[in-house]
């Protein structure tokens, strides 16, 4: 035990002696937190639009005002000739063009119904759809408040309740996923690299020849990163709760237990990778390719898994972060308990045992 503690101390020295890696270790999570918290948003704001009003009547002017004062749109051009429309889109000056036909006001008075034509730049399809949705919603509320004077409209009215994320804040979506990505990075990637480094520089053999047992060596390598991971998980969680106001509705103890389980899983994955590679560069390449990319793109972190083609969904199901992100979102945002997340927990547990099992097998072979 004393030997093990000494070895553990040595490993901590290794980590703290290399400030560049430490900076990266904490710099990447913080940069990601800032980017995802403040910068990455799917909401549509400040959309540059152009308005062509061939009618110039009272209604069209009022609706134009309503659109521009909504805060979503920004008038960027008033094209005069139809030939200019495409140029404006091509040069990226505008994303939407609203056209009032010459008889807009007359139709509205005589027939009670008029059209406005809206052209959206669908080279960004989702933004285009959201922009058109906003335009429609603003027009509808204009009709309801100003033209119909708030009388109850005939037909089916829809009352909407946004659950789990009332104000549709993007941070609610990103923070639970970010914890999964960052832990994968620190736990798995760093463990794989540090063990690979010993192998590469040939010091692994020296360690194995020492009176320390192999399991102690591996544990000594892993424990520092486990502590680092726990610290950074808590930091990200705290920042998410304090700065981005993401709640933890479910049980906090359950959340922490699941985070520990996931760290355990990521560490075993790191050990597993290290048994396959001999150099730091391969360890990094594999971590980058096998861990980072899938944990960002195939985990439901940014893009919902449901929208992917079936073969990719199958692959995504093999990704540990996918299951962990679901747990996080459920416990943090939905107030879920074990009743909801036990299948995910079992999967994480099963994967960890599998990884450890394979590593132990591989490691023994290397000793001979």
């Amino acid at each position, binding site marked *: 035990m004393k030997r093990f503690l000494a070895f553990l101390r040595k490993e901590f020295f290794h980590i703290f002696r290399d400030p560049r890696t430490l900076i990266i270790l904490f710099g990447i999570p913080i940069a990601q937190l800032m980017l995802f918290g403040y910068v990455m948003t799917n909401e549509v704001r400040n959309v540059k639009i152009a308005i062509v009003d061939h009618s110039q009547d009272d209604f069209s002017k009022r609706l134009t005002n309503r659109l521009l004062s909504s805060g979503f749109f920004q008038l960027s051009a008033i094209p005069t000739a139809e030939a200019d429309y495409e140029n404006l889109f091509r*040069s990226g000056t505008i994303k939407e063009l609203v056209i009032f036909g010459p008889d807009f006001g007359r139709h509205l008075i005589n027939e009670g119904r008029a059209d406005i034509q809206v052209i*959206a730049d669908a080279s960004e399809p989702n933004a285009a*759809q959201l922009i058109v949705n906003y335009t429609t919603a603003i027009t509808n509320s204009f009709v309801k408040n100003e033209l119909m004077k708030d009388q109850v409209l005939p037909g089916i009215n829809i009352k909407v309740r946004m659950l789990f994320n*009332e104000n549709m804040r993007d941070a609610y979506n990103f923070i639970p996923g970010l914890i999964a990505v960052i832990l994968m990075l620190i736990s798995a990637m760093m463990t794989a690299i540090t063990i690979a480094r010993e192998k590469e520089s040939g010091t692994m053999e020296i360690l194995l020849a020492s009176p320390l047992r192999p399991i102690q060596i591996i544990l000594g390598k892993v424990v520092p990163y486990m502590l680092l991971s726990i610290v950074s998980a808590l930091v990200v969680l705290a920042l998410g709760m304090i700065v981005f106001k993401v709640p933890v509705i479910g049980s906090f103890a359950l959340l922490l237990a699941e985070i520990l389980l996931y760290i355990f899983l990521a560490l075993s994955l790191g050990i597993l990778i290290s048994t396959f590679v001999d150099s730091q560069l391969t360890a990094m390449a594999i971590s980058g390719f096998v861990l980072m990319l899938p944990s960002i793109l195939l985990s439901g972190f940014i893009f919902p898994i449901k929208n992917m083609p079936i073969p990719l969904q199958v692959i995504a199901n093999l990704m540990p972060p996918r299951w962990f992100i679901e747990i996080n979102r459920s416990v943090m945002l939905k107030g879920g308990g074990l009743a909801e997340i036990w299948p995910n927990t079992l999967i994480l547990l099963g994967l960890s045992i599998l990884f450890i099992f394979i590593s132990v097998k591989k490691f023994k072979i290397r000793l001979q």
Partner: protein
Amino acid sequence: MLPVIFVMPLIQMLVLVFAATNELRQVDVAIVDFDNSTSSRKLTSEIAGIPFFKVKQNLVNTQEAEDLLMRNKVDLALIIPQSFDKDLTLNKSSEVQILVDAINGSAAQLSLGYLSSVIAGYSQKILLKTAVPGSVMMKNIVVKPTYWFNPQLNFKYYMAPGILVVLITVIGMLLGGMNLVREKEIGTIEQINVTPIKKWQFIAGKLLPFLAIGLFDLAFGLLVARLAFNIPIRGSFLLLFGMASIYLVLVLSLGLFISTISDTQQQATFVTFFMLIVFILMSGLFTPVESMPDWAQKLDYANPLYYFVKIMRSVILKGSNFPDIINEAATLSVFAASIFGLAIFRYRKTS
């Protein structure tokens, strides 16, 4: 080396473009029908008739629907109140409730939009049938959308040009960056340093082969995109590859610059990796730049990917010509020239 050149474009184009999609494939809806009348059943079958919606029916109470939302089994729940049919016949007006899983805001808005439009369509249908002419003074404005450049709203068209940018950026920065540092690590750089070769000749000589590889990969990636999802290429190839050359000189110089300031491959990879994450996430590849806060938009003026993503999307999807993108092109050229100069300046033949 060779597998990287061929396999990376294939995997990136096929996996990333298909994975990185916000296009809704299917929306799961739970319907709780407290009314169980002709009108409510018609509304239900109207929704169930659209293949895009997968409907879970026969729920007895709201609790059950909320439970399904809780366990990610459905995205939306539609609650039809008991008085639905009565209100419609007596008052010509009725109310339904929709519960939305709003964790992913934009997906929530889109799926809610679809369901609302189906309900509005149904509502319009019964109104037309039962409307008494002149009973209520109706006024309505209908928004008629047209989607230019991508009428089917195909998300792959949007992602593919962006992923191509990532592809040649990664290739440029990693291959270019790693190369010089490797020579440092194994010591061959000394042998080159003692030859009479000029600094700019050395840097340019390192740069050109990778420029060729980058352009080749761009062409290969475009071909894959064309064959796999039939992306339209509206702009001129000359413009596309001209811009790509300028951009590649920029990222390769950046890679070389990083390698002149790093001692080991590990340091170089970490720095590159960090820059790539920030550059890519801020480039507007995944989320629109206009939605970012002001400070981020200002920072983006220094992000080469921001300009090039814009250029690629405009030229490929909108057929933009040189005057349309002249600002972006000019900025990229200035960047490329200065970083190339910086890399030459920072490279020391003597240590």
